[in-house]
Structures are given as C-alpha cells and as structure tokens.
C-alpha cells in the first residue's frame, strides 16, 4: 500500500532557514515541495495558485507577516509555524496551526510536527479559521494598524489611516478609501473588535466610520440622523449609533 502524498510550501525570508526545512523533508518522499517563497506576498500568490496541503510558515517577514498570509488564504492549508520568536505561540494555536517550531530545531521535533500535520491532513477536516478565532487571536496586536485584502492573487495592504468608512455587505466588508473600495471576507463585528474604538465608531448596523472623516451630523427626519463625511458621503446613523457618537464626542 502506498502512502498518500502531500504537497508542501516553504515560506521564509532566509535562504538558510528554508534549507533546513528542505533538508528535513528530504527524508519524506511522501511530502512534495511544490514551491518556496521568501516573502508574504509571494506566499499568498503561490499558495492561492498551487493550493498546497501543508505550509511551513515563518512569521517575521517583509511586507506580510505569517499571520496575515494565513488570514488571506482560502482554503487554508495545514500550517506549521517556524520562527525564532516564542511570543507568538499562543496566537499560532488560536489560528489552529498544527505546530509551532522554534528555530533552531532538531530532527525529532521536526518529525513530531510533521506527524501531527499528517494526522490533521489525513482526517480531512476542512481548515477554515473562523473570523472570530482570528479576532480573538489578534488581541495580542490590538489595535490593528493595517488591513490586508486579497483580490485573486493580488494582495493589498490598507493602512487604517486611509480608510474613510467600512460597510457590511453580507459575508464581506467593504473597506472604503478615497481611491476605491476593497472587499474582504470578514464580518463587520469581528473587524470592529480589532479596531480602536476612539478612532473607529459603529454608527449603524452596517457602517463603521473613521472619526476624523466625520464633517457633521444632519437631522434628515424627526429622530433620524445622517453622518456627513468630509468628502460629502452621507451615511445613515442608527439610534444606538447616535448614542455612541454623542458618548464619544462628549456632547449632550
């Protein structure tokens, strides 16, 4: 009986670090290395195209860190984080990584991680990390300072300072910047929990605005308000949203 084979992707910005993983995998013909990437952008692109079963993922990398890479992948591969930083371990398990290898590691430790990965792969469990998991995992780097979005294989980093408002659209959020709108698969609530509430305020079930974009509030009808942004955009304000606004602005 032949063992099932799996495809693997190695992501690390250091050649030598990738070489160690490659060398350990050489003893495992059932694992086929489909590609190696040296930065987060490439990793997202390659993983989206090749859909590897298993990913060896560094955390500290140029452009995108390992967690951001993982957040952008659909479906998510089975992940083994490989890093010199032990402070991300908790977060790694919260995003359901099968293991967390600390550099440098020995062959026993590597085999253990690989074994776990194979069990996870063999179980055929779909590895969809829920947005809520990601948001709870993200507590360690709260508040967020940028949002990563992917359109096909193209990755865009949106610094929070560029956002005008965020709108809920079914399973997606629309991130509106002065230039364009970006769609990201996430709920408005989970995104809201990662934002600084002094800077971003939920004014309506479907809208979060960046406070410094707010020009004024207008009463459209009795008991009904609208937020007018600096660029002229009018957004509805709910009753609760109005209360929150008053709270934050300290008005009566």
């Amino acid at each position, binding site marked *: 009986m032949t063992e099932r084979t799996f495809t693997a992707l190695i992501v690390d*910005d*250091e*050649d*030598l*670090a990738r*070489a*160690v993983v490659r*060398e350990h995998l050489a003893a495992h013909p059932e694992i086929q290395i489909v590609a190696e990437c*040296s*930065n987060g*952008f490439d990793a997202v692109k390659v993983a989206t195209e090749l859909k590897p079963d298993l990913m060896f993922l560094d955390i*500290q990398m*140029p*452009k995108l860190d390992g967690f951001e890479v993982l957040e952008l992948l659909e479906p998510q591969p089975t992940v083994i984080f490989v890093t*010199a*930083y032990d402070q991300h371990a908790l977060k790694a398990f919260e995003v359901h990584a099968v293991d967390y290898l*600390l*550099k*440098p590691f020995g062959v026993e430790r590597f085999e253990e991680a690989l074994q776990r990965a194979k069990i996870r792969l063999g179980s055929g469990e779909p590895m969809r990390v829920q947005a809520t998991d990601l948001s709870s995992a993200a507590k360690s780097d709260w508040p967020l*300072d*940028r949002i990563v979005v992917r359109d096909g294989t193209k990755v865009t*980093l949106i*610094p929070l*300072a560029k956002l005008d408002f965020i709108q809920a659209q079914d399973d997606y959020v629309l991130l509106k910047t002065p230039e364009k709108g970006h769609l990201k698969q996430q709920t408005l609530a989970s995104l809201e929990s990662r934002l600084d509430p002094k800077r971003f305020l939920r004014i309506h079930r479907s809208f979060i605005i960046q406070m410094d974009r707010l020009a004024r509030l207008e009463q459209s009808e009795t008991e009904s308000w609208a937020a007018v942004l600096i660029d002229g955009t009018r957004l509805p304000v709910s009753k609760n949203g109005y209360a929150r606004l008053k709270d934050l602005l300290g008005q009566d």
Partner: protein
Amino acid sequence: MHPIFKSHARLGTYLLGWLPIAALFAAQAAVKHTPLLAAMIVGLVGAYIAAGLFLSSFFLCRSLPLATSRTSTLVTTWTAASLVMGTLWTVLMFTVLRQMGRAYPALTPWGEMNGPNLLVAGTTGCILYLLTVALHYLLITLEQRQEAERTEQELRVLAREAELKALRAQLNPHFLFNSLNSISALTTLDAKRAREMCVLLSDFLRKSLKLGERATVKLSEELDLVRNYLAIEQIRFGERLKIEWEVDASVEGVEIPTLLLQPLVENAIKHGIAQVMEGGTIRIAASVRGAFAEIHVENPIDADAETPQGLGLGLRQVKQRLQGRYGGRTFFEAKIREGRHEAVLTFPKDPDEVEA
C-alpha cells in the same frame, strides 16, 4: 559618636575656635589690673571649661531636630538648658580658679563668688552655651547634607550599573536563535562556513560581554563589534545585505558610551533589511566636525510600511544615554529621507574639554 571627635581637624578647629573667647576673657581680666599671666589663666580656664562642658549640647541637639521640633519646645528646652549649663559652668569655673588661687594668689579675686560676678559670668555662660548649640546644629545639618549627597552618589552609581547590566542583557535573543538556525543549516550545506559562523558568533559574544563591563569605549572598539555583528548577519541575509563604511581615521579614538552604536545597527537590520524583500545597503559613517564627532547609520525601509510615530525604544535609549553623558552638548535625530531611515548622532569628541 560626637561629630567634633570624628576627625583631628575638627577637634583642632573647635579648640582653636575657643581661643579668641579665652583672649576676650583674659583682656577683660587684664583691664581689672590682674597680672598678665593670671589674666591669661583666667581666660583659658573659663574658655576651655566651657568648650568641654558645652559639647554635651550635641546630644540634646540630636534629639531635637530643628526641622521637626515645635518652636515652643525648642525655646523652653534651650532656655532651661542654657540656664542650667551657664550656672554649672560658672560654678565650675569659680571653683577651679579658687583652688588655683591657693597656689597663685593673683587668681584669688577671680575665685570669689559674689553677686555681681556671678550674674556677669552666668549670663556669659548662657550666651556661650547657646552659641555652642548653634554650632552643633550647623554641624548636624552639614553632616546630613553630606550623607544625602553620598546616598545620591551611591544611587547614581547603582543606576549606572543597572543600566549597563540591562544593556548587556539586551543581547537580542532572536539574533542568537536565528544565527544558531543558520549554523544548523550550514552544518550539512557548508561545514566550513558553519564553523566560520560559530567563530564569528563566539567572537561577538565575547566582545560584547567584555565591552559591557566598561562605561565607555573607543569608537574603534565599538565599530569592531559592529563589524563582527554584521559579518554574522551577512551570512544570514546573503545578498540582501550590503554594507558601506565611511569612517575617518581621526574619529576612531573618540570615547563613546559603551554599546551606543550596536542597537542602532541592530535596528537597521531588524526594521530595515529584514523588512525589505530585495534588501539594500546599510551605511555607517563617522567623522569629526570641529569639536564634535558625528555618526550616521542609514538603512533602507519598506516604502509601504506605515511611518512609525516617534522614536522606538532602542532609539529613545540611545538619545537618553547621549543626553545623560553630554547634557545639552549633543544632538540626536532619526528621520526618513528618500526611502531610507537615517539616524544621526553628534556629540563632543572630548567631553572634558571646557566649552569655549
């Protein structure tokens, strides 16, 4: 212990200080047709009985600190004490002089305790006693200030040691782990380079431990450590890391606070080279400008990254250490220019030189 007896100099000064008073007494006696020798004896006996007797006021001074005692308590206590001690002194002096008068009759009139004599002597005693009390308070204050200064000095030394210890402990563990990981990779890929890296890493550790024991080092020594560090990172980052050196020979002998540059260069790797996909060039320049030394550390940064607000912890520490050592005669700036981060340090090349 009584502060007067803490040193010979103090005791000597105290005893000498009573000499003018002895002279005053003697003069007063001489005016009253006493032979010179007798007048001198009267003066010396009077003054030095007071000198010895009034030393006791120290213990009362110590139990009644000026700052914390109530004024009413001070007034009553010192009035009572001066009356008692003034009287005691008067009685003692007359008794001694009377006894001496048996051997030297010229002294006899000075041993007679009659009303006017007693009043004058008693008043003088009270005044002298209060003067001694004032002197003691002065001494106590002086001692307390010296004590405070010594404590402050000790604290400063402790703080300085703590700072150095912290710097030594700052040896970035991730740098170590990443280097060890590179060595682990090289053992099978290129055993010779693996050994080379082991040696570089050991050299680096030894040097930084050694430098960490000193408060200041020559710039050349610090640069040596930096070169060592970059040689290790060169193996890790390969072609992504290029280094440009522009160090004037004239600046190499300048003394700088230990491990001042190392964190700057570590920052240049961590926030520069490691964040930029294609890597880039770290430029380290040092030169002399008049009475000042100027050092630049430059690195490329990721153009898309959000510009950090203010100085990070590492840069803030560098700035604080510069200010701690050179006060207002130093300049530190970190700025982003044309896609590169640049840190500039300027400080006096000879800090002990008096400013013109």
